């Protein structure tokens, strides 16, 4: 069980993600975000619980739904929102947008517009760290959709045969866009696939930040200790549409969405903190107010930030050494 201070840090981190995502959704509706925007609302406990164990020099590789991973890994809401606004102050200087968020300085090795590569790249980070005899680790976050991609099979097998320090974190939210995992996977369980690769694996409630935190803690310890990779399946749900502005009907029932909203990871954790007297309502309210203000400030910062200069467009195709 984490210390009191860490317990509150988890709460704060989830709120940073939630409020940032809600801000991005509003900004998208207002036309301030020009490209795609896949929010992480409902899944905050996963990035929060895993990244709680990571150091800035651990390497995270993410997906198209990656704002939460970036924020939990230490990219500020200012840099994330500015990036989605296409401004030069964004974490990718406006070159990337939502699906190309990079901040290697804190180990955020990129969100991705292509499903799958994060699994292989996190495997490669594991290879580097093993070769360098460092205790850093590589972490891949990916959706249930990626589990059916060849990259999953190949990445997990490679990490297993070489006992690489890599975490494979599957965010199983039951759908890939509108396609149910139950339709697209012959084996509808992800967490029981580890043994097929000779790898530890575990399934957790992805809407329970403490459960995620505990499972990730064990996996991180295993990886840092040279005992090889772990596959963690986090059962969760996205409560907004696949992407902002997309229809969200016809493939799942309103009842299902409501049932999962009732299991909201933040509300649940708020209740847990109060019930177990880890924090009083004033403490939690103060955290909420502080994060709200930070995100509002971040939005203002992003909105007032300059656009990238057109004449910089050809920079960074190659190294500038």
């Amino acid at each position, binding site marked *: 069980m984490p210390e009191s201070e860490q317990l509150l840090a988890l709460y704060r981190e989830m709120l940073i993600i939630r409020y940032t995502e809600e801000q991005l959704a509003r900004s998208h509706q207002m036309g301030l975000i020009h490209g795609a925007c896949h929010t992480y609302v409902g899944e905050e406990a996963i990035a929060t619980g895993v990244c709680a164990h990571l150091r800035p020099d651990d390497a995270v590789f993410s997906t198209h739904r990656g704002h939460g991973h970036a924020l939990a890994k230490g990219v500020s809401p200012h840099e994330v929102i500015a990036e989605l606004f296409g401004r030069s102050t964004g974490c*990718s200087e*406006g070159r990337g947008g939502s699906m190309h968020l990079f901040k290697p300085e804190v180990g955020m090795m990129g969100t991705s517009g292509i499903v799958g590569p994060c699994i292989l790249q996190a495997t490669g980070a594991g290879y580097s760290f093993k070769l360098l005899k460092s205790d850093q680790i590589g972490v891949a976050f990916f959706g249930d959709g990626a589990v059916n991609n060849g990259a999953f099979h190949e990445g997990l097998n490679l990490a297993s045969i070489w006992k690489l320090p890599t975490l494979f974190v599957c965010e199983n939210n039951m759908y890939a866009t509108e*396609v149910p995992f139950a339709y697209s996977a012959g084996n509808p369980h992800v967490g029981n696939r580890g043994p097929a690769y000779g790898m530890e694996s575990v399934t957790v409630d992805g809407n329970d930040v403490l459960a995620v935190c505990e499972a990730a803690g064990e996996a991180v310890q295993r990886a840092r200790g040279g005992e090889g990779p772990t596959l963690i399946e986090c059962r969760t749900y996205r409560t907004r549409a696949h992407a902002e502005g997309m229809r969200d009907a016809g493939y799942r029932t309103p009842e299902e969405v409501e049932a999962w909203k009732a299991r909201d990871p933040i509300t649940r954790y708020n209740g847990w903190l109060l019930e177990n007297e880890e924090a009083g309502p004033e403490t939690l309210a103060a955290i909420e107010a502080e994060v709200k203000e930070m995100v509002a400030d971040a939005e203002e910062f992003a909105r007032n930030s300059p656009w990238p200069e057109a004449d910089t467009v050809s920079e960074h195709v190659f190294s500038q050494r």
Partner: protein
Amino acid sequence: MRELTFVEATLEALDSAMARDPSIFVVGEGIGERGGNFNTTVGLYDKYGPERLCDTPISERGFVGMCAGAAMTGTRPVVDFMFFDFILDAFGELVNQIAKMQYMSSGRLKMPILLRGAIGIGHSAATHHSGSYYPIFAHLPGFRVVVPSVPSDAKGLFATALQSDDPVLFLEHKSLLFNRGEVPEGEYTIPFGQARVAREGTDCTLVAIGSMVDKTLAACERLAEEGISCEVIDPRTIAPLDMETVLASVHKTGRLLIVDETFQPCGVGAEISAQVIDRGFDDLDAPIRRLNGAHVPTPYSPTLEEAIVPEAAEIEQSIRDLLAE
């Protein structure tokens, strides 16, 4: 004549071909009940059912390789990638298997597979959702590469693709998909390798591809007000490439500019230039010019994105420069 979008036009061609030929089936992500991310298969699931409108997992290499096997054994797969960028995960299957199968089997096997997807830069789609890549495929023996610029061509070329025994890449620019244009009723085909002269003129020849055709026509419209007469050729298919129409036009005008959103190095413009120099050198009154998108991965921010795509004003300036040579 009635007007349809690109998407409606190809859907009409697909629907009538599927009604006639039970060996045609479509695979892709969200192409079943959902009707496709870009509405490319709307209504077909209800008509033809889940076996012929097959929703796939996110397994591009898997389903492309699978469709190669299907095409070798009596069916006609249509692979719908939504964004063409996703085809790259299947590159090995395409280059080593699909493109070469007929040759390797000394013509005894056919490879009737149609691969379609949305290409091109726009709407801050950023670099994993903006690729075109057709010069890469045109470089390889064995592929037919189609890049239509108006809905009526899209319908006729798609119908041809559905009857072809060769692998066909059918690539539509995202910014065109929901543009309307006149489209004839009923079934018709347009042969591959036959360019369309989109505008006749005498002062210079412009070859424009895909989304560049409309922009080039807009530039010509402005120049026409000053009495400058430009001819615009839309090749429609990059492989095979109709060089006869280009050569005949250059013979008339003596000047050539190629306008293409994709990268310049080793691109379609380079190929056209080389062939014109080879076969029409004496017709040229000026150096051949190319206008392309910048040779960079596609940036996200609108200010950067705008900077890399040729616009009508830039095309107009390039034509003026060419005429001043």
